[in-house]
């Protein structure tokens, strides 16, 4: 049983950390500390309750996504992207499909694009729900978290109707969606649009203008625009610092140019700004969902690309040609061109990029994920330097570091 060698758990030794005065204490935050949500370790040097320096250890759930991706046919990689940023897996899935479609040169019909937008924006809402309500939990207000979690449950019901799973959705296919939006799903989305705002407003009332919460978050873990750019911030965290960079606006994909929405920005990139930006993004996402569901175009939900998109099942049972295509696609023997693609989508945490190198084989030759939280989490020691332990924890949870995305 216990034949595998367990290596001792690594804590940076005293000598590796910078020379410090004797009075400082070392506090090991994580990997099982309740506030680290996902799993990473922060070794904090503290002077009383003040943080002098920090050092992170990550990789506690490193799963070798990029290595697996080199052994899996294109359509199976959705199961990996699902598990990357698991709070908003549809965005990852769609981003991956769009990358492959870009490589293959498939034009996806308008209806499929709108359905994708719907799913991505719902995913963004769930992602921000989790981040903001967890920030509430970390300040001690647990109840608001459970109120908005009920709404997240409704979004999951919608996913379930669309694809059959809640969290790891495996949604969409190369060339479109795997099935059309059902009338139940449409009904549920419409219900959600109606029932979500009151609950979100309740969360806002519980936290936004509550002085305890404001005192806890204002000027906690701020980051300047220059440092944020240097650290590779994207998404809500960069917008909180005041730079309105949003991939959906700058490089519209999947018909985002059709929708009218605003890009919320904050003032100095502190925890309150990040919270408020995410809060407003939920409203904007809701606006996009509303527009998309009301203007959902008629038409097919998949591209006319028989060699890449699985043929309808009835055809497979009857038609030899369809059966051959079916076999080819499932075996992964599609004729992908060689080439390299970089495609970025606005993920829950920022620019989620896919750098795909194909050599024409059944699997990517190399697939690299540009994972926003991996890149911006390295700014954490700088952000929490000089603040207290409580502030450091709020900074961490407002950055919304998702361990699956961090470690890949």
């Amino acid at each position, binding site marked *: *049983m*216990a034949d*595998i060698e*367990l*290596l*001792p*758990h*690594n804590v940076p030794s005293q000598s590796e950390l910078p020379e410090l005065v004797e009075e400082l204490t070392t506090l090991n935050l994580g*990997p*099982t*500390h*309740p506030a680290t*949500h*996902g*799993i990473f370790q922060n070794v904090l040097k503290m002077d009383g309750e003040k943080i002098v320096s920090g050092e992170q250890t990550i*990789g*506690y*759930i*490193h*799963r*070798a996504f990029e*290595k*697996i991706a080199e052994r899996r046919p294109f359509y199976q990689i959705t*199961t*990996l992207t*699902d*598990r990357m940023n*698991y*709070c908003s897996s549809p965005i990852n899935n769609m981003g991956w499909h769009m990358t492959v479609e870009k490589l293959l040169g498939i034009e996806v019909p308008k209806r499929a694009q709108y359905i994708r937008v719907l799913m991505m924006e719902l995913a963004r809402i769930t992602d921000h729900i*989790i981040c903001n309500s967890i920030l509430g939990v970390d300040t001690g207000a647990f109840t608001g978290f*459970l*109120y908005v*979690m*009920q709404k*997240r*449950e409704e979004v*999951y019901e919608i996913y379930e109707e669309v694809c059959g799973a*809640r*969290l*790891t959705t495996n949604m969409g296919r190369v060339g479109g969606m795997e099935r059309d939006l059902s009338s139940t799903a449409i009904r549920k989305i419409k219900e959600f649009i109606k029932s979500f705002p009151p609950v979100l407003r309740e969360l806002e009332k519980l936290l936004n203008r509550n002085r305890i919460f404001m005192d806890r978050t204002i000027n906690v873990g701020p980051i300047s625009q220059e440092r944020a750019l240097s650290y590779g911030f994207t998404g809500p965290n960069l917008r909180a610092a005041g730079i309105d960079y949003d991939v959906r606006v700058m490089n519209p994909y999947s018909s985002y140019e059709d929708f009218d929405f605003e890009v919320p920005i904050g003032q100095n990139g502190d925890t309150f700004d990040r919270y408020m930006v995410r809060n407003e993004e939920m409203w904007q996402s809701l606006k996009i969902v509303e527009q998309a569901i009301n203007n959902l175009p008629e038409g097919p939900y998949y591209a006319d690309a028989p060699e890449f998109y699985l043929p309808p099942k009835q055809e497979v049972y009857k038609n030899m040609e369809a059966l051959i295509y079916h076999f080819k696609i499932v075996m992964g023997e599609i004729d992908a061109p060689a080439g390299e693609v970089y495609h970025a989508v606005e993920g829950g945490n920022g620019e989620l990029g896919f750098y795909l190198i194909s050599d024409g084989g059944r699997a990517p030759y190399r697939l690299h994920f540009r994972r926003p939280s991996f890149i911006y989490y390295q700014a954490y020691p700088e952000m929490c330097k000089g603040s207290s332990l409580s502030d450091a924890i709020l900074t961490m949870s407002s950055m919304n570091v998702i*361990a*699956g995305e961090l*470690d890949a």
Partner: protein
Amino acid sequence: MKEVKIVGAPDGHSGAGFFATSLDQAIGLARSYSLWPLPFATSCCGIEFMATMGAHYDISRFGSERPSFSPRQADLLMVMGTIAKKMAPVVKQVYLQMAEPRWVMAVGACASSGGIFDTYSVLQGIDRIIPVDVYVPGCPPRPEQIIDGLMQIQYLAQNESLRRRNTDEYQELLTSYNIQ
């Protein structure tokens, strides 16, 4: 709304004015309705655990809503999510810090067997380092399945002798994991 199943009184000898039951059963029952979990949530399954704690599924109905992040206070180690080899010593450490009686639940494919992550960096199931009582399949399991797993642990707790932890079999099990 259907009638909620309430725990029945343990089998015992009831007579005029007295009701006796064996201590084992009474304490087993008490333990099973007071399983404080230590949510060792590393990835996706942790998010589903949040849903299990949430209003719709409400794990508190079983008396387990108090998450004990300190292993000393926990009765049930819920390992949710991928355990990489870098993490494995930590899991074992947490398990060792827990006080008896302790139960372990491997939630989801990754914790139970490695799931799709058959890679150099992922531990192929936590049962290689610590003994597991209940495996919950699914990736991630639905909250219903997590509750099923919890109910299975309750069943184990109820049907376990008070001093099972001193038995030879249990000691042997621990020895096979190099735990003393």
